[in-house]
């Protein structure tokens, strides 16, 4: 166990932070050893990002002390932190897209030739050596903007190593990666660990903690509620420490499905997906699984009128339809909750109330005018029913947490009284508490006879909720699995393997 | 879809326009040669550089002559009237044709326009510049091409064949003298200037100040930028009337701005104050307003000078000397036009019909 044998690298004691009298971090201790992967978990708002920003020199803690290799540190800026070997890799990557990999890595400290020009040969040579040491197979001359997200992330990490980082803080690095890329990232983390770096790892995906971390610290409401070697705990321990109660369990297989609600036959959108066929019934959840880029979202959008399929057939309650736009889909009682809250879902600077009702303003119309009282009553009821936590229905939706934003968008979809509801990654970027609540909402909807199509990259989620799983691979139907046939391995095999 | 719509719109607009041009109407002014020739008789300066009707011979040969005219812009009827005097002269000479370009009040565009004229191979360039200094390079390009360059209205400090213009300073002095005389050398006035920074506005202001220097009892209460037009003059005058209860006269650089001021006076119920208007532009409508007593004086800054410009170019091309051309403090020579007399009640009848524009004056809102 490296955690015990090696020296203490980073030691934070009693970190406390408050904004305007609002305590967001209270007396938090954190000990990181060389060669250790230390996971930090917690719901949104638990204090993870404040802790990271404090360690990264963005915030100065109100009280508490920070030791690096036994030496007390006073970090005044992010540059200070980087200078002392503490490097944060943020979720939003910061590479300059028009510069090459090597230029990005050496940005700000280019090697110079004797006459002061950039020494390209040396820069490329050193970059190549660095990348090969880390087992990263990327050409130093490639433009950063041409790389995939996963590759850009690796370059950010390589850049950190070139700064002689001793402690690497990865802020939700897997949030933007799909299953296969996560494996590559974890290989790199293992390599860094072997080189004696200390790694702090933030993730919403609890199974990743068990795959990669040595130690885990749990935060809730700014306090440390648990710390333990990963080997000694299980997932329910983590969840209970995070949310302060047990995660809801569902009894599977008791659903009663009704008539066919949505029938898709040979649906094709040239160059994107082809020949997709499946049927979903009332009171049933059909999961759409597949790797990122398999065409799941595109299929869902073609079903609900956002995209226009080139051929194939869609029947809604037995009636053949051709949907020209989302409005038509809504009129036929079909609604879509997008995966991309920010660009396709939120009206960020509008109040929650308007966000919730934009899909069905006709509900409140009387002689052409909106009746605001009726609207308020409707939204108040929605807030109660979906247990949305907010200061009031007139606050801008962008001020809400991810989970509450998502619930408002679900409420928006429910406002059209849908019989078919398509959820695209309903729990992405949502904390674990809200996640459980969203599962409960889906269960309730299905129990009331609504047909749900669920797209998710989290296999666990798909397995937990779906009656039937349609696996896509590169825009084609790879396999349809019943609940009994489905498991993580059967889905992954169908999604990732040829034949 | 959009393309089709735009196309339809364009056709709808341009086909009728093109059709009217087909009946031998001159571009922009929209008048036929017959109409223009009738107007020619009324032009004030046909006796300067006189030229007989009929084809113009150059070196004994009656070949086709193309003259380029780069105008500041055609956004004001004064500018269109200037073009009419040019077109009228051109109509008298069957072998002379015009290429007319619109500078859009943009020195950069006008510089390019002048160069375009050179590319099109015109025989002479007439230029009425947006602004003096900025057109020096364009003027040099014309001179370098060995083509006559006639500059009109505003001058350009570069080598040229001839500059033809009137003096805004002496004209403003005439108008201001008339005002001082009417006021008996004592009173309060407000000033509505033309677009600030433009050279006629600067010169008209200078002429006024030259005169007021002699009358210390005439006080300027307020100055506003009315931009030559009516709309900005209204709120300015309204505010002046609110601030001052003792305004005797409005000295305005443009008739349009005077009309705006008069509207404001009527609306403020101050018609009874007997506020007098002194203005400039020299339109027929302005002269009629002088006759009706709305305006006390109208500075007669006539646009009908481009016919002289064309004649000067033709003189030069056919090798004739230009009588009256004199050297002055700028490169090239100048033909100074006599100041047309300021139009006042006494001579209004004589001038009505010889000004520019054939529209009626706005009904005086104080006489309703």
């Amino acid at each position, binding site marked *: 166990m490296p955690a015990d044998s090696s020296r203490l690298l980073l030691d934070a004691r009693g970190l406390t932070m408050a904004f*305007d009298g609002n305590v967001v971090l209270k007396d938090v201790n954190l000990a990181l050893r060389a060669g250790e992967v230390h996971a930090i978990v917690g719901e949104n708002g638990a204090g993870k990002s404040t802790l990271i920003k404090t360690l990264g020199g963005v915030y100065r803690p109100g009280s508490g002390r920070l030791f690096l290799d036994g030496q007390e540190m006073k970090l005044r800026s992010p540059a200070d932190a980087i200078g002392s070997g503490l490097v944060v890799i943020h979720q939003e990557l910061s590479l300059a897209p028009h510069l090459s990999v090597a230029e990005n890595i050496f940005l700000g400290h280019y090697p110079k030739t004797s006459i002061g020009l950039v020494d390209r040969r040396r820069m490329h040579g050193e970059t190549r050596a660095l990348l090969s040491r880390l087992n990263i197979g990327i050409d130093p001359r490639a433009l950063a903007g041409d790389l995939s997200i996963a590759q850009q992330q690796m370059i950010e990490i390589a850049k950190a190593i070139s700064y002689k980082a001793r402690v690497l803080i990865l802020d939700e690095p897997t949030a933007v990666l799909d299953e296969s890329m996560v494996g590559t990232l974890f290989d790199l983390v293992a390599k860094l660990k072997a080189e004696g770096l200390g790694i702090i790892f933030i993730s919403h995906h609890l199974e990743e903690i068990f795959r990669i971390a040595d130690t885990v610290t749990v935060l809730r409401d700014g306090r440390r509620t648990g710390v333990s070697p990963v080997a000694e705990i299980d997932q329910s321990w983590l969840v209970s420490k995070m949310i302060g109660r047990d995660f809801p369990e569902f009894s599977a297989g008791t659903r009663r499905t009704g008539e066919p609600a949505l029938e898709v036959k040979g649906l094709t959108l040239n160059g994107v997906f082809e020949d997709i066929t499946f049927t979903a019934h009332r009171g049933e959840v059909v999961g759409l699984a597949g790797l990122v880029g398999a065409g799941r979202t595109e299929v869902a959008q073609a079903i609900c009128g956002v995209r226009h399929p080139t051929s194939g057939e869609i029947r809604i309650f037995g009636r053949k339809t051709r949907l020209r736009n*989302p409005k038509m889909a809504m009129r036929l009682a079909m609604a879509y909750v997008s995966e991309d809250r920010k660009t396709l879902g939120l009206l960020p600077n*509008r109040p929650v109330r308007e966000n919730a009702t934009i899909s*069905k303003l006709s509900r409140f119309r009387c002689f052409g005018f909106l009746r605001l009282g009726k609207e308020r009553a409707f939204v108040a009821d929605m807030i109660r029913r979906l247990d949305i936590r907010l200061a009031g229905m007139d606050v801008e939706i962008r001020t809400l947490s991810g989970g509450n934003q998502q619930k408002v968008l679900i409420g928006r979809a429910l406002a059209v009284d849908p019989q078919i509801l398509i959820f695209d990654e309903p729990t992405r970027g949502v904390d674990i508490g809200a996640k459980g609540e969203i599962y409960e909402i889906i269960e309730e909807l299905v129990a009331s006879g609504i047909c749900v199509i669920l797209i998710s990259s989290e296999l666990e989620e798909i397995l937990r909720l779906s009656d039937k799983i349609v696996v896509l691979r590169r825009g084609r139907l790879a396999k349809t699995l019943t609940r009994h046939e489905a498991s993580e391995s059967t889905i992954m095999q169908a999604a990732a393997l040829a034949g | 879809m959009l393309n089709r719509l735009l196309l339809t719109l364009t056709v709808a607009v341009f086909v009728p326009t093109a059709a009217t041009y087909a009946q031998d109407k001159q571009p922009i002014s929209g008048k036929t040669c017959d109409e223009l020739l009738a107007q020619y008789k009324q032009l004030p300066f046909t006796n300067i550089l006189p030229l007989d009707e009929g084809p113009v011979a150059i070196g004994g040969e009656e070949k086709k002559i193309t003259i380029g005219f780069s105008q500041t812009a*055609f956004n004001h009827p004064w500018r269109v009237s200037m073009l009419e005097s040019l077109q009228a002269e051109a109509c008298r000479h069957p072998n002379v044709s015009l290429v007319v370009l619109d500078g859009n009040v943009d020195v950069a565009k006008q510089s390019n326009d002048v160069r375009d004229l050179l590319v099109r191979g015109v025989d002479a360039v007439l230029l009425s510049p947006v602004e003096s200094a900025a057109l020096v390079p364009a003027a040099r390009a014309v001179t370098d091409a060995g083509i006559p360059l006639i500059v009109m209205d505003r001058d350009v400090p570069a080598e040229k064949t001839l500059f033809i213009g009137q003096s805004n300073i002496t004209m403003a002095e005439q108008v201001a003298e008339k005002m001082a005389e009417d006021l008996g050398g004592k009173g309060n006035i407000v000033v509505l200037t033309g677009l600030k920074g433009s050279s006629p506005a600067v010169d008209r202001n200078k002429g006024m100040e030259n005169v007021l220097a002699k009358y210390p009892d005439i006080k300027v209460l307020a100055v506003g930028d009315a931009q030559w037009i009516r709309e900005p003059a209204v709120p300015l005058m309204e505010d002046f009337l*609110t601030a001052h209860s003792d305004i005797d006269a409005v000295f305005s650089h443009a008739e349009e701005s005077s009309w705006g001021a008069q509207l404001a006076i009527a609306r403020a119920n101050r018609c009874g104050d007997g506020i007098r208007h002194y203005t400039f532009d020299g339109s027929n409508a302005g002269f009629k307003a002088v006759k009706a007593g709305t305006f006390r004086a109208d500075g007669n800054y006539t646009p009908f000078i481009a016919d002289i410009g064309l004649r000067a170019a033709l003189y030069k091309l056919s090798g004739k000397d230009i009588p009256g051309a004199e050297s002055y403090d700028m490169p090239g020579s100048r033909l100074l036009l006599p100041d047309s007399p300021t139009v006042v009640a006494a001579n209004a009848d004589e001038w009505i019909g010889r000004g520019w524009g054939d529209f009626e004056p706005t009904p005086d809102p104080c006489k*309703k």
Partner: protein
Amino acid sequence: MNRASFAKIWRRVGVFAALILLIVVASFLSDRFLTVPNLLNILRQVAIVGILAIGMTFVILTKGIDLSVGSLLGLSVVFYAGLLDDHGMVVAIPLGLSAAMLAGLVNGIGVAWARIPPFIMTLGMLSFARGIAFIYTGGTPIPILNESFYRLGNGYVAGIPIPSLILLAVLAVSAVVLSLTAFGRSVYGIGSNEEAARLSGVPVKFYTILVYVISGLVSGLAGLVYASQLSIGTPIAGQGYELDAIAAVVVGGTSLFGGKGTVAGTFIGTLIIGVLANILNLTGVDPYVQQLFKGALIVTAVYIMSRTDRA
């Protein structure tokens, strides 16, 4: 009170507070300022730009911009002037308004269907409509002799100038449309996030077109005020007004990034600019210096707005 709600309250009353402050300062600078005739003057002086700015608010709320409003005003003005003498107000007014609305329709189709950026589309229309106005008049202003039309621009109803009443009517109708109709609500939605609005079933294209038609219609109404007040149909009417209208909108607290703002704010923004011009004239400030004040006011107002936005 926490910071977020302070920002919200400031957004709601801050512009108004600025107007009150300006009025207080102005009444100290000139004893003629706080008189009924002067206040009515201001209300009439701001009518044209105020009406344009309300239409502009609709467009900016959708994250668009309409640079052609000044030209559409000019277009309607020459039609009123050209048609009045022969056909009377009953024909001239509807036709003038229709001309401006038709141009707005072309703007809307260009933006919503052809996906031409609003800046470009309306810049093109700025030039195109001005060109038509020049062609129609041959460059010469058309005097308006119609007596009842003159009274429309210069008369009073219940002691209030008719142009100001037109402004207030446009304001009231717009405020109701924006806050109490599905269309108004969707205008905010489109500006806040067009894609999200589309996915929520909002007829984004149709409403976007409608917004530009409204801007055209309102430009035509402003043209009506212009022509009737000034008794002249000049093809250069309204040149540069688009910038005055945009200034009033942003001073009134509407975000150029869409989805945020009210017509009431725009009205107050219009008044702030109008009162400033008025007091500078009353106190006889040099016209060159007036420009400085106006520029500084716009930048300061928007700076304060953006600060409170971030808080």
